[in-house]
């Protein structure tokens, strides 16, 4: 069945953009296939969240913005995320354009590829093609198809065997202006025994009716270690859809640190496929629901390898009339003997009108495994407040200490100080 998309762009606009960026033919084909599929596929089915009335596709893609010569010229919201005195490996993207990009010689000498996706398509097209959409398929649902049609920007990160990248690599994505779209695709390939950390932030400028539709695909090789930290502080005028997925080979480790600090509606899905023996996944998510925003945040781990281990922690603070659905899915496949999957969702409710649902789901098809979950939805412990106040701390300050304390163990994991500080600021702002 075909759905009338009523898009504000067409295959001509897509082709024009692809040509202008000298994309390889296979990539344009993907885009056009994506456009077609977007008209045919349904939206993803989400637990307790209906998104059909959300802004899925009412945006104008490929909006250009001018590059800057130095980071000093970037917008303030972007600059705040960056250590301006110490710019090393950094991508800054606004809407469809890369505004600033820097990579160190050291990284190049190590054989690491860290490049804007458009550049990588030109210079390392075959390598990109080998991995692109291998863990998140074009036709999973309407949103992945749409993403493929209008993808613009993102990074390609390739780390050769045995190479350890010492400093975290950073990207900042900004969506700004009426009907703007940011739709980056981040592709991370870490070969055997390599190590890398990638940190991105999504910020927004002025504008109405904006959309973010982003994808991260990570390929963690044998014994490799990949960390992805992502902080999103998009305004109430942005609808955010993000899908992140990693596949992990034997003895590899994938670590996610996610700060879902948007003010607007958000769908986030974060999945790790533990394919290899003794592979590991760590997922830590914090979120704060404010105003009347709706969020559906899913963390998922699928165990295939024997002795694979996962640990998922989600913490949410709910205020105002916000609604958050937190899904934690641990799936252990037949044959994943001695796998161990743990998850915990904890929701702190600060308002009677807010709603926070923690849905831990364990799906286990193998006998010889360990799995566990702990979910809690609660208010401040009055005992804790009393205890802090009994030392002279005001109620307000006591509540603040408890909320920040609730979230801080995750915040502290973000490897770039500026991003960590901005995240703390975003927390303070959201918590009023």
């Amino acid at each position, binding site marked *: 069945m075909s759905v009338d998309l009523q898009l504000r762009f067409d295959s001509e606009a897509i082709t024009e953009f692809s040509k202008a960026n000298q994309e390889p033919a296979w990539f344009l084909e993907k885009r056009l296939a994506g456009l077609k599929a977007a008209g045919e596929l349904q939206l993803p089915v989400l637990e307790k969240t209906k998104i059909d009335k959300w802004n899925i596709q009412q945006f104008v893609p490929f909006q250009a913005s001018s590059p800057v010569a130095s980071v000093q010229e970037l917008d303030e919201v972007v600059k705040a995320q960056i250590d301006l005195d110490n710019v090393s490996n950094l991508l800054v993207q606004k809407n469809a354009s890369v505004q600033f990009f820097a990579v160190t010689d050291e990284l190049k000498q190590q054989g690491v590829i860290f490049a804007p996706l458009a550049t990588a398509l030109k210079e390392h097209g075959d390598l990109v093609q080998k991995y692109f959409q291998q863990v998140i398929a074009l036709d999973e649902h309407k949103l992945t198809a749409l993403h493929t049609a209008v993808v613009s920007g993102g990074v390609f990160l390739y780390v050769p065997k045995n190479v350890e990248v010492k400093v975290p690599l950073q990207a900042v994505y900004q969506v700004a202006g009426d009907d703007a779209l940011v739709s980056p695709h981040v592709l991370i390939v870490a070969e055997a025994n390599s190590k890398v950390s990638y940190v991105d932030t999504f910020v927004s400028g002025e504008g109405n009716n904006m959309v973010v539709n982003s994808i991260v695909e990570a390929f963690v090789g044998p014994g490799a270690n990949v960390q992805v930290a992502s902080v999103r502080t998009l305004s109430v005028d942005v609808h955010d859809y993000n899908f992140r997925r990693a596949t992990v080979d034997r003895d590899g480790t994938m670590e996610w640190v996610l700060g879902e600090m948007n003010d607007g509606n958000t769908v986030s899905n974060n999945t790790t496929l533990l394919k290899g023996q003794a592979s590991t996944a760590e997922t830590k998510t914090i979120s704060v629901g404010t105003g009347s925003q709706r969020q559906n945040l899913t963390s998922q781990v699928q165990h295939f390898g024997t002795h694979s281990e996962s640990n998922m922690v989600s913490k949410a603070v709910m205020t105002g009339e916000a609604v958050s659905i937190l899904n934690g899915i641990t799936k252990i496949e037949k044959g994943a003997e001695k796998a161990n999957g743990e998850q915990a969702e904890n929701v702190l409710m600060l308002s009677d009108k807010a709603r926070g649902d923690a849905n831990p789901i364990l799906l286990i098809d193998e006998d010889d495994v360990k799995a566990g979950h702990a979910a809690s939805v609660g208010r401040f412990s009055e005992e804790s407040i*009393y205890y802090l106040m009994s030392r002279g701390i005001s109620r307000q300050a006591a509540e603040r200490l408890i909320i920040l304390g609730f979230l801080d163990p995750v915040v502290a994991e973000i490897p770039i100080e500026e991003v960590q500080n901005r995240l703390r600021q975003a927390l303070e702002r959201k918590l009023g």
Partner: protein
Amino acid sequence: MTAIPHLQIKNLRAKIEDKEILKGMNLEIKGGEVHAIMGPNGTGKSTLASTLMGHPKFEVTEGEVLINGEDLLDMAVDERARAGLFLAMQYPSEVSGVTNSDFLRSAINARRGEGNEISLMKFIREMDKKMSTLEMDESFSHRYLNEGFSGGEKKRNEILQMMMIEPSICILDEIDSGLDIDALKVVANGVNEMRTADRGFLIITHYQRLLNYIKPDFVHVMMQGRIVKSGGPELAERLEAEGYDWIKEELGIEDETVNANV
């Protein structure tokens, strides 16, 4: 020098969930004095401590408490603390994500007020010093408040807070429970270091043992929600030797628990 601290408890009655626990408490504590309250379990000792501190579960139905002449019962919990009251709790809370040192610094700064915050260097120095007096490992300053602490570690941590905050009226509720004799000495040491003319103590215990290390000036026996007998240190010794029965007989009390009356 500030005036000698003074806590006056007059005919205090308090209840929890419609059950009257304190039934007319009278007690006066001045700076330089150490009072001990002893009494069987369930008699209302912790209720007294919690009511004075302002625990929300306890409701005062009658009476008056003044701290340095001001109405304590009219103050919020944090105001009571800033007025100089401190309670080392029998069962302190665990607060995840808040480190011991962040918490203590907030507490100290809350008392000092905005613009007069303690410098980080000075704070660390003081904390190190006091932790070594209490033979606490350095790592405790970075651990989350009471989280995963053993019973004894929690007690030390209460005393550490008292030493850092330097209150003027200190109530210690069963600070000896869960401590072995060595730990007891260490904790008593910390308390004794703080005994000065401008600080008063109320020590709640049901063992005389603690009072061997912290010598009280006054000993009170509490039963059925009020003080039934007062004396000097010799009273504690007699209680240790003979138990509470003689007092019950002397006063014609049939059962030491308040439950028996309701």
